């Protein structure tokens, strides 16, 4: 280690697992044999049926730092935590830990169902290295922390899973390790208990301890962690400041959601099928959004729908709170009287707002042949997410559909423009991205008897 404050240093850490039990057991025997003669078994390569559960992962945790581990199930988070806890040896790379390490890995471990909560606390405390005297001393605090005053002498088999988890965390909460490993424990327990846990973790961090925290909650990562490591198929997909990693993770989720919704659209939506497929085909081919509905005997044909950024260039993505233009090229085989264009911006199947000539008023008195209409929105009030744009065109009287409502484009609002907004809140990134889709500027004012005391302004 080069820096005294670096308490966990992980360099090129790799771990291989075997897919089949029988073979895995046999490799186990061979590995034990190799250990016993002081050698390494098949160093640096995979044997038959093996895969890298962790592949060349590197990171550092300093004193007072909290690292969040994120990734879907099976991405290697728990494997990494087990290695940090010294339960398994690496197959490549090195891991250095300084000071006492304690883990909060599945708390029910070692609880004997027949024995009472109190007896189990004694066993768990002994497993965690506490002496009998220490345990007796902190027993009241443990019981209070777990909120199990009335049940502590009942057999653990009568506890709910939440009660068991609370009791387990309560035991660990009495420890004062240099590095604390936490595996998704905050998903159990009620709000009050979660608050208690958060306070305890915060206290540990403030007292210059390091915490490595596995969670599925991006909110917790953003609010609690300094840095984050995103694992995917055992590889470090991104490692850095928590906010940056959360952004990239959400970006990735959105891209997936976009792909999925496109595939679903093709599968079910009769009318939007053609447009949807065309949109994605065209985008894949040319890298620009377009849509077409090649029905020829209709009064109007939509040739393409393009999304333009503030600089007038076609784009797929827009920064948060920027100008946006939707350009629609159409073709009318015969003269059409006062067509009324309507764009509906949708998210999750719900319309959020409409840019509608049914409200704004008609355009030219008639169109014929090829034409273009652009709808300019000076400030798109949408938070970073993916939105569907639906188009329908009515005849001059607003009664007949020239073009029935169909999805014609997707807009992805990125969090690129977030810097323009103050974002002082603790969960700004997560809440903007996962909360309500519409963003309106606002000002908060606090008054006391003396008058205005505080102002919080969201303006950009």
């Amino acid at each position, binding site marked *: 280690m080069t820096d005294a404050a670096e308490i966990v240093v992980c360099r090129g850490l790799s771990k291989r697992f075997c897919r089949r039990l029988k073979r895995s057991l046999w490799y*186990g025997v061979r590995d034990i044999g190799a*250990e016993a003669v002081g050698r390494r078994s098949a160093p640096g390569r995979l044997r038959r049926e093996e895969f890298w559960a962790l592949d060349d992962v590197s990171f550092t945790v300093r004193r007072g730092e909290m690292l969040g581990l994120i990734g879907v199930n099976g991405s290697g988070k728990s494997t990494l935590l*087990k290695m940090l806890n010294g339960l398994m040896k690496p197959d490549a790379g090195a891991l250095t830990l*300084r000071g006492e390490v304690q*883990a909060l890995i599945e708390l029910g471990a*070692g609880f004997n169902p027949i024995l009472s909560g109190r007896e189990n606390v004694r066993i768990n405390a002994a497993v965690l290295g506490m002496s009998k005297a220490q345990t007796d001393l902190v027993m009241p605090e443990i019981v209070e922390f777990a909120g199990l005053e009335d049940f502590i002498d009942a057999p653990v088999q009568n506890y709910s899973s939440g009660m068991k988890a609370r009791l387990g965390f309560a035991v660990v909460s009495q420890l004062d390790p240099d590095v604390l490993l936490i595996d998704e424990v905050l998903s159990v327990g009620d709000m009050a208990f979660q608050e208690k846990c958060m306070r305890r973790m915060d206290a540990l961090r403030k007292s210059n301890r390091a915490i490595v925290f596995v969670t599925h909650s991006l909110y917790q990562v953003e609010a609690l962690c300094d840095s984050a490591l995103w694992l995917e198929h055992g590889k470090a997909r991104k490692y850095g400041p928590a906010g940056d990693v959360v952004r990239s993770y959400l970006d990735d989720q959105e891209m997936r959601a976009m792909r999925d919704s496109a595939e679903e659209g093709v599968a079910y939506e009769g009318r939007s099928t053609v447009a949807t497929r065309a949109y994605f085909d065209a985008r894949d081919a040319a890298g620009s959004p377009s849509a077409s509905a090649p029905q020829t005997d209709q009064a109007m044909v939509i040739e393409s729908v393009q999304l333009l950024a503030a600089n007038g260039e076609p784009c797929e993505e827009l920064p948060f709170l920027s100008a946006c233009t939707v350009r629609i090229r159409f073709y009318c085989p015969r003269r059409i009287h006062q067509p009324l264009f309507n764009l509906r911006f949708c998210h999750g199947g719900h319309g959020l707002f409409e840019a509608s000539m049914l409200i704004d008023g008609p355009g030219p008195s008639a169109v014929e042949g090829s034409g273009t209409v652009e709808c300019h929105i000076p400030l798109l009030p949408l938070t970073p997410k993916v939105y569907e744009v639906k188009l329908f065109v009515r005849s001059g009287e607003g009664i007949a559909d020239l073009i029935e409502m169909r999805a014609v484009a997707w807009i992805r609002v990125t969090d690129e423009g977030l810097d323009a907004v103050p974002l002082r809140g603790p969960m700004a990134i997560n809440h903007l991205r996962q909360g309500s889709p519409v963003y309106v500027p606002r000002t908060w004012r606090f008054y006391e008897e003396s008058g205005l005391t505080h102002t919080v302004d969201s303006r950009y």
Partner: protein
Amino acid sequence: MPRDPHIEERTYTPDSELRHPLRLLRSMGTDLVAGRELAWRLFVRDTAAQYRQSALGYFWVILPPLATSAIFILLNSANVIVSKDLGMSYPVYVITGTVFFGLFSDGMAAPLKTVAASKPLLIKVRFPREALLLTAWAQTLLSFVIRVGLLAVCLVLLRAHIAPTAPLAIIPAAGLMLFGIMVGVLLVPLGALYQDITLGIVLLTSALMLVTPVAFAPPSSGALATIMHYNPLSPLVLCARDLVVTGDTSNLPATLAIMGVCLVLFVIGWVLFRLAVPIIVERLGS
């Protein structure tokens, strides 16, 4: 780099711990001391849990040797077993034999039993692994205490002669426990991975009992005589029995020599156990 000597620094690499034998031995010692209290808790837990759900409870500790003895006494009375020149009555011979042999068989089964009972802990929590070995010792000692009590009661009931050397029998008794635990610990790396070992131990115990002077004296010639002669368990069982009943100490030197070898093998088994645990955890994990 400024290093705080009070802060322990650990580095995990793919290299075998055997590459730093001194460091390995030191951490084995530290963990042995650190694991005492936990071992006691695990022992209390396992013992309480083992018999809490049975009607006969602790009676199960003495039932197997009693049953075995009864079978052999029955066979002997039907003249199926040729037992002559025993120097004591047959029931005394069999009961002392089964009780002392039981120390070996209990010791042999204990390490794997402890590891199996603590599997959920083993794969999730890092604690001094030596605690498991200490728990195995504690369990064997418990069976020793119960068996000695049983033996005393039986000898009194059978009005057997008890030699003044009887207290010395604690030496071969300890040797039998050490022998059993040594074999058990050596079997843990394989036994934790493959169930075959646990199943095989039962078979091995019965087979060993037949080639050890438990229920009959070694024959004077033939294959069995040769096996019994070279069976390292024989001097231990004979020595223990003689010290209790006849006061004959002729097997004591062999007993002490075998105990020395067992001790060395036990330490080797202990090292293997330490090296194997992380691999067992990764193979059985989650």
